[in-house]
């Protein structure tokens, strides 16, 4: 059953990756990358247990945190640049 779950996770990772490639808008790419990251955390946790990797839970924990930070970083740098520019010249703010 564990191997079946791992295969399911791998399939989902592939689907999320396709969305990251395709995604017409950048939000879709962000979503795909975030999903891929979450699936990888699960993959490392499950596969590490099956394959008896060393310290696999530490890496999974680390990546769960970093996935979140990466998504927030994308938001900060792309979606809200307008806010800072509007604050510069209040006349041009809509």
């Amino acid at each position, binding site marked *: 059953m564990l191997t*079946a779950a791992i295969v399911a996770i791998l399939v*989902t990772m592939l689907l999320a990756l396709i969305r990251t490639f395709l995604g017409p808008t950048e939000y879709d790419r962000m979503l795909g990358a975030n999903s891929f990251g979450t699936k990888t955390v699960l993959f490392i*946790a499950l596969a590490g247990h099956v394959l008896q990797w060393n310290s696999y*839970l530490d890496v999974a924990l680390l990546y*769960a945190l970093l996935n979140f930070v990466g998504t927030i970083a994308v938001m900060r740098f792309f979606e809200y640049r307008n806010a800072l520019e509007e604050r510069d010249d209040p006349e041009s703010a809509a």
Partner: protein
Amino acid sequence: MTAIIEILSGLCLFLGGVLCVTGGVGLLRMPDFFSRVHASGVTETLAAPLLLIGLALQMEWSLDLVKVAMILILVLATNPTATHAMAKAALHGGQRPLVFDNDKPTRGEGASKP
């Protein structure tokens, strides 16, 4: 006792796997960003704890179990927040959800618009 735990673990893993793939398919097939966010966010946030619980049931009592619990809590906390943040960012960036306009009221239901 161990048979019950094994069955429970297998069930959790199976459900988690099914939810996972469903979320992935939803990611690809949904027509619009917001529906994709909804599909993947909801299913992932449920699939991750199910899979992790299924994994934890198969391990013995050790430090690893505490770490799995920590990963579970972390994913449960960060995934919805990230989904919310992404949706809010998209809204702020000008995306609007795809809306289907039903001009004709269907028979038997009170239409909200004339």
